[in-house]
């Protein structure tokens, strides 16, 4: 296992993994947090149906989403002309679709758990729209940071979609999970295990940082 620490391709794969899944998570947050806020904050017809749809979305196997994205992006597909299939962009796209429902679901649940009168309070105190949103997000930060962790954890560890739409091309679209599959199939169990340890270390470090932010000032 020792040689993987000095292998430059391992560092390259790790960085690519972080870049693809990090970008996908950020995009999922940009889309998912406002939607989750609307879903958790308001009462409207069809809300229960939407909640159920989001909760289902949280559990769709990544390989199924990968398949759908593949059908859309493959050369003969409706968006084939964009030539995105087997690129990092395709992987990001698939991972956004995997993680957005997670972000929406976690955000909606954390907004719903806030005191119902909180927005009214901020309104009568005179807080403007942006300040209200910021203060509400701060109140809901436990759930929002859980959303970040669950979304990133979900996409960094998935293999089905990345394999399907990324193609596991060496030096191009290979990420830690697809590399583990490759090494396992080649019988390089030591190397596969080593990559697994790297993946776990990366996600643990990130989650540790987010958990520290999440738990800050909870004591007292």
């Amino acid at each position: 296992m020792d040689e993987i620490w000095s292998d430059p391709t391992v560092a390259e794969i790790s960085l690519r993994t972080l870049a693809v899944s990090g970008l996908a998570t950020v995009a999922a947050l940009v889309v998912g947090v406002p939607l989750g806020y609307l879903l958790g904050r308001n009462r409207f017809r069809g809300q229960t149906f939407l909640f159920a749809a989001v909760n289902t979305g949280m559990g769709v196997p990544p390989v199924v989403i990968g398949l759908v994205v593949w059908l859309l992006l493959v050369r003969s597909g409706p968006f084939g002309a964009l030539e995105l299939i087997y690129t990092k962009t395709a992987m990001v796209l698939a991972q956004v679709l995997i993680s957005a429902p997670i972000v929406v679901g976690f955000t909606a649940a954390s907004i719903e758990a806030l005191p119902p009168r909180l927005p009214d309070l901020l309104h009568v105190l005179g807080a403007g729209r942006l300040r209200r949103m910021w203060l509400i997000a701060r109140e809901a930060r436990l759930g929002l940071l859980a959303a970040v962790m669950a979304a990133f954890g979900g996409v960094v560890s998935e293999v089905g979609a990345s394999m399907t739409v990324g193609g596991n091309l060496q030096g191009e679209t290979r990420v830690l999970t697809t590399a583990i599959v490759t090494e396992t199939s080649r019988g390089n169990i030591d190397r596969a295990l080593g990559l697994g340890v790297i993946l776990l270390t990366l996600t643990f470090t990130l989650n540790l940082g987010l958990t520290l932010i999440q738990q800050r000032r909870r004591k007292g």
Partner: protein
Amino acid sequence: MSLIIEGLRHARPNGFVLDVPALELPAGKVTALLGDNGAGKSTLLRAIAGLERPHSGTVRFDGAPLRTEALAFAFQERVFLQGTVRDNLDLALRIRRLPAAERAVRLAAAAAELGIAHLLDREAARLSGGEQQRVNLARTLALRAPLTLLDEPLASLDAEVRERLLAELPAVLRGFIRVAVVVAHDRREALGMAEHIVILRAGRVLAAGDKGALFARPPDVETARALGLVILARDQSCWAVPDHQLRLGRSDHAPVFELRVEQVLDLGTHAEVVGRCGGAIVTVRAAADAELPRPGATASIIAVHAVELPR
């Protein structure tokens, strides 16, 4: 100048309609909204604050549409942000863009008024219900808002604090308000704090006016009843009587009524005679050593002070 509501109409999906064609709350006074549960007291308060979107109507304060900066509102539900009591009070003042020195002065003053100086560094969410209510009030009073709205300000407080605030809150409010509106389920609290009374019933204003004037001359039976007066009828006439003004006996100088006695309670220091007078259930206090009627008997009672109501 004052708070003027015109043509306010707000319907809820559950069928409740708040309908206030015209209402003026006088400047320099504390107004209490009185009414049963579901009469629309809290809805009216929220509509004044702009938290309800009424179907029609305007609220004008000092001749202009109400600005949020002029407003402070203590909700019945005690809502706090994460953090200490100081954080919560300071945030309210920071949102109003007050400089740090002014914030410190306001915060200390409000903490002293509500007796919460020792709680400032405690987590707001972890306080007892009574402590939270005092923080809720302190946050509202610290804003020194010309229009201050208090929904059930004395709820959840222990008896000692409640009585102290009942005595002190009106004076504190008068120190800075143009208009203050208090909603209290408890009639004693509402009357104790306010000089001006608005009585609501099923979403409409039943009566509004100066407290003294309303008690001196209740316009009708419903208003008198809402003010807590006992309504007694005799010979086509109706009288409104404060219950402590009823005595057993007869008199040539005060209206006399017949009471069908149902229960007599000897409470040691005094006795209570409970019975029916017309349709009303009436409790009359009597000296413990007085000659008391028996249940089933008919007794005469006099209203030492009574107001005859217009028919």
